[in-house]
């Protein structure tokens, strides 16, 4: 990656967001499901359970991004364009995820009818709430976490899942595709950071939303193991 965030404020924000990301990775390292994945004690059933839970967030994901776009007023029409583009690219990603679920041995009806887990409820609720505010510039912090996760899935998790479940990448397509695409998204994100982070208050808001998103994302993953 060669692109740089240019303004001093954007630069500071990027540094803070990198730290939030590193902290998030450590939080992920403490999630039991992901610890099992690390140890190679992760079954196909675990993977299906992960997708089943994940799908409920992915399908809602495009909603908050679309709403976020529409909440930007005329002064931010350039930002709106970028975010609409992003939302359009991703709003049917969940279909690939569902296909992976079926390829891994799950039933389509199960994943389509599953409820949101507690973490997903919280994450979705928070993101929709923030997206409904006028000019929700802080959501670039949420995008940072979610895009970063896409890269982590592709570069890390997909291969580990295939390895420990004896897969041939035929049912980890969502993770792999999503990561490949996110590289380009990350570049756009850098530009957004530069555009949207122009004051210390904006910096604080972006970083705070990134931290809340990271925490709730972890909660969502912790909840994958909980069945009621």
């Amino acid at each position, binding site marked *: 990656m060669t692109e740089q965030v240019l303004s001093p404020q954007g630069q500071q924000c990027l*540094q803070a967001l990198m730290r939030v990301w590193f902290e998030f990775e450590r939080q992920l390292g403490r999630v039991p499901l992901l610890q099992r994945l690390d140890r190679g004690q992760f079954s196909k059933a675990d993977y299906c359970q992960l997708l089943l839970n994940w799908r409920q967030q992915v399908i809602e994901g495009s909603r908050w991004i679309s709403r976020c776009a529409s909440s930007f007023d005329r002064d931010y029409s350039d930002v709106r364009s970028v975010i609409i583009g992003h939302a359009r690219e991703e709003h049917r990603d969940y279909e690939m995820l569902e296909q992976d679920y079926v390829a891994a041995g799950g039933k389509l009806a199960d994943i389509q009818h599953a409820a949101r887990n507690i973490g997903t409820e919280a994450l979705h609720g928070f993101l929709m709430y923030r997206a409904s505010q006028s000019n929700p510039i802080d959501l670039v912090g949420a995008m940072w976490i979610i895009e970063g996760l896409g890269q982590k899935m592709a570069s890390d998790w997909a291969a580990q899942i295939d390895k420990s479940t004896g897969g041939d990448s035929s049912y980890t397509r969502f993770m792999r595709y999503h990561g490949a695409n996110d590289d380009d998204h990350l570049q756009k994100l850098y530009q957004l950071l530069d555009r949207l982070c122009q004051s210390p208050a904006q910096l604080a808001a972006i970083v705070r939303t990134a931290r809340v998103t990271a925490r709730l994302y972890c909660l969502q993953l912790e909840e994958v193991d909980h069945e009621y």
Partner: protein
Amino acid sequence: MSVFITSSGHFLPGPPISNDQMEPLLGLVHGKPSRLKRRILQSNGIKTRHYAMDANHHTTISNAGMAAKAAEHCLSSSFLGKRQIKMLSAATSQGDVVLPGFGSMLQAELGLSDIELHSSHGICSSSMMALKAAYTNLLAGEQTNALVVASELTSRLFKASRYEAAGSELDFNAEFLRWMLSDGAGAVLLETQARGRCFRVDWIRSFSHADAYPVCMSVGYRGDSSEQRSWQDYPTYAEAEAAGALLIRQDVRLLENIVKLGVDGYLRLISEGRVQPDKVDHVLCHYSSHYFRGKIFDMMQRAGVGIADHKWYSNLYDRGNTGCASIFIMLDEFRRTRQYKTGDTILCMVPESGRFNNAYMQLTVVEA
């Protein structure tokens, strides 16, 4: 009160060993040349290193012996004699004996009397932990000087016979470090008074993340999902060795985390105001491999807190990766051979992959 590094020293055993000389010295495992060697050496960029072992696999000098030589080298250019040393703080990943502590063995080897003793155990960052223990001891007013020594003799683990004893095929993780690590020792002398041109220690900090990451480098268990037993849990040590529990391993898949965590600590120190990137004149970073140097450099650059290429110094390529001794061997060679001036700021970084402990230190060049 301030604490100063008033002298330093190092010891590297035997002649420099080139890449081509490594395998004849360490031995062919099952009589076959390594298929991974070239790839690993290409990536780490190391050209020569030293071994405290000859081609017959006889140890030429003990770990404590090397540590003592480095300490004597350090004292030989200091204002202090052995009798005046108040504290010895020693680090290694594996002493010559399991017990007693490495510091005790080193003290006897050096012939230091009535000192306060500290042994630090770990991998690459253990030297920085030993240094911090001594530094805080001096800051607290407990002692007026401390000799800090770090030494590694890992080649004992790389003899072909070790791998053969552990059975059939070598896996990548067990072979990886064979082409990375080598032997050597380094020492620094801390004093509460400056002497001539020396380095003031501004601060030493470390951040450990063992709770969030699995083990990345180990000796003492196989560490795979099927076998978590310690070497001490086998009925006999012979069985532990046969099961591969005594091989030194690196989980290469986890290694990349070192880059992020290294930069993470650096960003924390910036936000605390301890590091000001534009004021750093020299960077001494113990990266295990040239490959990681690029990664760390790029990530710092991307965060907008990069430090210019020409400010980075390392002697990894000629002296080898000597684990915890590396940073002292580097600091010693820097001190003796490089250009620096009063007021210069030196940032030392030691990211350890064992279970991810990252240590940092800032020095300022002062003139007494």
